[in-house]
């Protein structure tokens, strides 16, 4: 790792100020992607600004169906929060399968979303839950937030403070892990928001990051069952291809995982 200056911000204002001051500053939350990348010398920020200790940045609030999760909330806390599990068990279950225990105790929801790794789990949840990404500047709909692999609508220096969504009536997330990394090779989050408002989001498989599967959403709106989407194919042209699985395999997995998610959502 190259040398860097670590700063622990105590407010959003201080974090923003530090970011401006640094030559090549980066925000860090749980650091589960950034720190390994720095160790490999593939990233070399001059300044690291730790957001986790800003007041109000972590914690889960559930009020009726409304859920708000602070950006610095760890995967472990999301996976073990009883109130969240009561209204949106699919999200708690998703968090319980990110990485390993060490990752889950350090990694945060805001960090994961800001990084928008094409194989990360949370982006699929945010899209399918129709979440709002709250920053220190504005609120951004998930549909407009994820812009492709590792790209988001975040402007330079903008900080995610929370995510908010209304709990769906039913939902499930099923992923097929990459055998080596155990990241999602294909993960599908299906959420039924009632009155035919179905959202299906796919991570890990698409060659432009997380995406919504409109054809499946349409089919499920009329008939929320695995059978309804059994014959819906996904174009291999839009899929990732690597040593673990080619595009045709991933396209096939989208259907399999989607059916399993629908069946699991019940």
């Amino acid at each position, binding site marked *: *790792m*190259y040398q860097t200056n670590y700063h622990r911000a105590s407010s959003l204002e201080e974090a923003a100020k530090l970011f401006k001051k640094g030559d090549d500053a980066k925000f860090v939350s749980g650091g589960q992607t950034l720190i390994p990348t720095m160790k*490999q*010398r593939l990233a070399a920020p001059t300044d690291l600004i730790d957001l986790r200790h800003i007041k109000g940045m972590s914690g889960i609030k559930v009020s009726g169906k409304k859920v708000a999760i602070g950006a610095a909330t760890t995967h472990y806390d999301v996976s073990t929060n009883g109130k969240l599990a009561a209204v949106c068990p699919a999200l708690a279950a998703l968090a319980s399968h990110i990485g390993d225990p060490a990752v889950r105790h350090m990694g945060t929801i805001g960090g994961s979303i800001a990084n928008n790794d094409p194989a990360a789990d949370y982006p699929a949840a945010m899209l399918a839950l129709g979440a709002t990404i709250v920053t220190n500047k504005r609120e951004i709909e998930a549909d407009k937030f994820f812009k492709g692999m590792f790209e988001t609508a975040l402007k330079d220096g903008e900080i995610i403070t929370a995510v908010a969504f209304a709990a769906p009536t039913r939902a499930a997330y099923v992923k*097929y892990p990459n*055998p*080596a*990394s155990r990241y999602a090779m294909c993960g599908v989050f299906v959420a039924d928001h009632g009155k035919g408002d179905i959202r299906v989001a796919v991570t890990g498989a698409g060659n432009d990051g997380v995406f919504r599967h409109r054809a499946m959403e349409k089919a499920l709106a009329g008939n929320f069952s695995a059978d309804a989407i059994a014959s819906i194919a996904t174009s291999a042209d839009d899929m990732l291809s690597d*040593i*673990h*699985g*080619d595009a*045709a*395999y991933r396209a*096939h*997995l989208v259907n*399999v995982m989607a059916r399993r998610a629908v069946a699991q959502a019940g």
Partner: protein
Amino acid sequence: MGMEGIGARVLRKEDQRFITGKGHYTDDFKMAGMHYAAFVRSPHAHAKIGKINKSAAEKMPGVVAVLDGKQLTGDGIGNLICGWMIHSKDGSPMNMGAWSALATEFVRYVGDGVAVVIADSPDNARTGAEAVEVDYKVLPHVTEAVVAMGSGAPQLHPEAKNNIIYDWEIGDKEAAEKAIAGSAHVTEMEIINNRLVPNPMEPRAALASYDSAQDHFTLYTTSQNPHVARLVLSAFYQVAPEHKLRVIAPDVGGGFGSKIYIYPEEIVCLWASKKTGVPVKWTSDRTEAFLADAHGRDHVTKARMGFDKDGRITGFSVDTVANLGAYMSLFSSSVPTYLYATLLSGQYNITNIHCNVRTVYTNTAPVDAYRGAGRPEATYLVERMMETAAREMGMDRAELRRKNFVTEFPHQTPVIMCYDAGDYGATLDAALKASDWAGFEKRKAAAARKGKLRGIGLSCYIEACGIAPSAAVGSLGAGVGLWESAEVRVNPVGTIEILTGSHSHGQGHETTFAQLVSERFGLPTDNVQIVHGDTDKVQFGMGTYGSRSGAVGMSAITKALDKVEAKAKKIAAHLLEADAGDIVIENGEVKVAGTDKKLGWHEVCLAAYTGHNLPAGMEPGLKEGAFYDPTNFTFPAGAYVCEVEVDPDTGKTEVVQFVAADDFGTIINPMIVEGQVHGGITQGIGQAMLEGAIYDGNGQLVTASYMDYCMPRADDVPSYQVSHHVTECPGNPLGMKGCGEAGAIGSPPALINAITDAIGNNNLTMPATPARVWAALNGK
């Protein structure tokens, strides 16, 4: 046996320090003034080296030296060698290209070392290495062996035309062809044995220092055979004369073969320590380990096996191309020849075998022995052929094998080996019974009801261990003898130190070797200290690999113990006024048989050292040494049954049952042997369905981290059912055969036979990843 003698499940004495973080590995050692080495490695698969601009690096903070290959060769450091001469079938010696510890003119694989930076911290060394500017003229490259032999392929070494190192054969080609031609059935297959990266838990490391006052070097290194390292460093690389070089291999965290060889990094650290006047440490990071540790396997084979109308094997013809990478590693030449083709008879009585092997240079990391070394490749080939032949002929898979088993011993195969003992029917019966082979169809039907495809596969393996009779391997081209040495030092108080040339890097020698003493004298293992891994302490030894430490290393200890016992009995007989022939030693006491006359073991030992009252003419002391040279290879064998369930939707395979019935001869510590089998099978499952080193079209290693190279994890493997069926090895005093590699040798074909059985498509290449299984299932 005593409580801790042969056959006792003594807990591993070394585990306390390993699992509490108190092991002492190479990287744990520190020296005053120690500096750190970082290597400048080639980013290209093949390139001509132009100017190396070191000036920026030399000015970096903490950098004391930037050294390159021309300086290294200029100082007289010799090229790396391959220690086993193979002659091609036309009689010509193998075509070995030059390998300098730092490249001088060309780089030949991604990771090839070009220069080294020595600095006062690991970070400064690495930053310095990044500042070295190397002009590369990129050349065309080739990573696949079959392509590399073809016309128009880039040429790696002027010595090796068409990149072919040797074109070797064994067996009678004409007889094999004739037998196959007259067969009622011929099974024909093309088999790929995938390239693997060894991945020991501890990466390689070296710490070298030069004492100018004594003109003496010390090298701490991650070695499975420190004496061989010293010999080669001295005799071939001219780093230092043998008596001026101490090599210490302290606690070593796994090797699997990859730490047998002498690598460029150790040579460079030794040379640099003298050149800079500071101790130099290098510790590989995981990416360097992927790039520059010797890889394993990487064979492409075409084979035909003929059968008569009753299913008896008539002949076996094999044509193998083996990828040896960019340079010939220390024992690379022997792996696809004498450790591979000599096992092609399997457990079977085959009169006619012919095997041709061409080894090839490619722009990839060097390939050498990796757990099993040649024998997994042979077993995979033979057992895939047998399973496929049974399917093609509509015969029962187990019965086809049984019909062809060797049943009389000794059995001379047509490919050098003479099997000394075994009972292949017994291990097959045990495996079939333990796996409830007969009840498989019911389980298959039950799996089908829940949407899973269930398959069962069998593998009957044999391997050759206890390497090896020195004269025999010498006649086959080995540059060393493969005996082992031991010294038993009995202290005046009766405690015992055993100095051994074997090296423990996970095998548990501190426990099992001590059990030999416990068995012999009835002493607790806590009274025994095992000393190994230091050329200043142990006079010489050949190290640990090829499952040899039991059959060869412990035989040497046994011989030395014989001498100690004989002398102790003479002393006791003298003191007790009895005949030495009447003395027995048990439970720590030295007794006159049939009387109540006895001495404590410690009393006899003390008498040996006081010398006050010894038999006339006897030298004081109680210390004996022995060298043991094996009379034959040993032949562990067994039968493995693997049962899988495949999810047809995803291609994901779950190994639901794995049964191993092994014959390792005498077993010293069943717990440790079971651990070896569990680990070996897990590595075999890794090869069969998870692991594979892949170079892309640019010659870059795609699988250079655990993000892409898939190691087996606990949830990938079932709870194993392991059993032992002993036929004693007649070739060594303890009757041992060896158990370290069997699991990795026997398991891959069992697993692939099971998956192909489940999916009904025999066309499946390792690793059988979910994507590949799904494609095979869908006829893609």
